[in-house]
């Protein structure tokens, strides 16, 4: 029913739509002009999981680390300023949010289900789409055009899904909202924080992870929660992490395992069911312990 209504909305809306990749809902398309900017070609540059490496000068993994379906790119020109529109189609709204959450810093401009804007760059998610719209030079006019493009694209997609439920496990007190990240793989974790070269947390496409920074004066810490497919895999990951990173250190006994690194930083672990929680980047043992205890995990493990 929702799709039927949505199809009607699309048919009644101005502007063109692109054929879907897989027979589902059409892909969004931006208008031919926006302010003084004109679209160089109505047909987007269509990027696939294979061609994204060429498009990004050899780097596409941070998108492929989520369930990536395809990318459409359009370019607008006006005088010397180019506006580039990128529409990333993901498998799920959670992953669309995940891509945005690689960096949530910026001005919330109220576009899509969540947006950030800084210096000519608008990033937002709507449904299972993530958008990135960049004006090479920011002026009042280009800012207005970028935001208008964002609104036009967001209007073509139903708002569906929401932030990953796992984020609700992060304790609220002291959490810096723009520090939140949602991801799956070691590559993403490694782009955010370096624990080890090796994938010692056994992250994969089958794991869900959230991370956030906490500031509880005068102390600070970060918290990572990983949801594994099973209790067994979570236990293996905990043992791997403990064995590789905490070897030869004094570690307090379960359920809250705390250790102090040579650098003076504290790391804490808590394993419960299919969840592994890590508190880190802190000079405070107390804060690590407090955060680990504050995480509320279901007793039924993976069921959320």
């Amino acid at each position, binding site marked *: 029913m929702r799709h039927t209504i949505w199809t009607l909305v699309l048919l009644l809306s101005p502007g063109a739509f692109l054929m879907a990749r897989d027979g589902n809902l059409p892909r969004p398309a931006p208008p031919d002009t926006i302010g003084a900017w004109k679209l160089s070609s109505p047909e987007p540059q269509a990027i696939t999981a294979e061609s994204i*490496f060429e498009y*990004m*000068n*050899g*780097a*596409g*993994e*941070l998108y492929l680390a989520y369930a990536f379906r395809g990318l459409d790119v359009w370019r607008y020109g006006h005088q010397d300023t180019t506006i580039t529109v990128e529409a990333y189609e993901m498998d799920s709204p959670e992953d669309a949010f995940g891509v945005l959450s*690689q*960096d949530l*810093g*910026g001005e919330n401009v109220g576009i899509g289900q969540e947006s950030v804007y*800084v*210096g*000519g*760059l608008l990033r937002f998610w709507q449904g299972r789409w993530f958008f*990135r719209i*960049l004006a090479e*030079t*920011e002026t009042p006019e280009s800012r207005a055009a970028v935001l208008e493009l964002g609104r036009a694209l967001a209007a073509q997609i139903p708002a569906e899904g929401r932030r990953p439920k796992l984020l609700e496990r992060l304790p609220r007190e002291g959490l810096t909202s723009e520090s939140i990240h949602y991801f799956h793989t*070691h*590559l993403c974790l*490694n*782009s*955010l*924080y*370096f*624990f*080890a*070269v*090796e994938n*010692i947390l056994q992250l994969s496409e089958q794991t869900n992870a959230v991370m956030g920074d906490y500031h509880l004066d005068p102390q600070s810490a970060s918290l990572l929660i990983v949801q594994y497919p099973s209790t067994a895999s979570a236990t293996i990951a905990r043992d791997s992490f403990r064995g*590789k*990173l905490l070897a030869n250190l004094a570690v307090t006994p379960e359920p809250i395992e705390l250790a102090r*690194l*040579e*650098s003076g930083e504290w790391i804490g672990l808590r394993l419960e069911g299919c969840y592994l929680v890590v508190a880190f980047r802190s000079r405070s043992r107390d804060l690590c312990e407090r955060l680990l205890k504050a995480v509320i995990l279901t007793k039924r493990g993976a069921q959320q």
Partner: protein
Amino acid sequence: MSDWRQVTRRDFVRDSALAALAAGSVRFSFAAEGDKSLVALVRDEKAIGAGNAVDAATVKKMVEEAVKAVTGESSASAAWKKLIKPDDVVGLVTTTAITPTHAEVVAAVTEGIKAAGVPADRIQEVQRKKDAAAQCTALISIPGLKTHRLTGIGTVLKNYITFGSQPARTFHGENNVKLGSIWLEPTVKGKTRLVLVDALAGAYEGGPQKDPKYVWNYNGLIASTDPVAAETIALKIIMAKRKAVKGEEWEISPAPLCVAAADKEYKLGTSDPAKIALKAIGWEKDILISA
């Protein structure tokens, strides 16, 4: 490489694990001050003006100061002649992403190479043109100053990533430790006469895509014939900028293991600050690093 896969945060913080990495390849000949690798940092507040307009004349002077400092020559012409021979086929390796190499820098370098006696038809841009790079006898690497979320730092060592025999993604994540290996591939090995980092603007976070909130005008150029020393200085500037922005240490992820490995494993130069002579010239405000 012996055991870089075993490196953890504890090792990296101690800065000890990479010191144990294996050795055994070629060391290039570098400009040096005593037994130290020389890195010139040239800055001018007039290099970038309102609206990020680049002052070409100022940039030309900065490039001249940089090559003079690196070579120890008193004139830019003599400096370029020391770096480039008239019969060289010269490839310019610029950056196109995040913080693209400014055209004004490329123009000043090209002019200098011409002054060394190389005709224009033997000077070409070779980034992403592996076959063309292979034909060159001399390379000038002119990367933009930047981080990269897939390699940690994305400035000097990564600038040759398209010349590798393996796809770029081979060097991403923890595998950034192997970036130095590309510099030993036949396409580029031993050809780099000068590394000139375009630090007029820098990106202290992000990558592979540009995010304007992390780009700042540094108004500088970093020059050296030691690519690792140049990268080390670039990294120190980026780290200092990150600390200035955040008010506390702000580590880069993934850890830029490539810098130490380029020194210890691939013998491309030095990453030891004690073995680098930094010569700062010009504008000192917000320099972020001390000579």
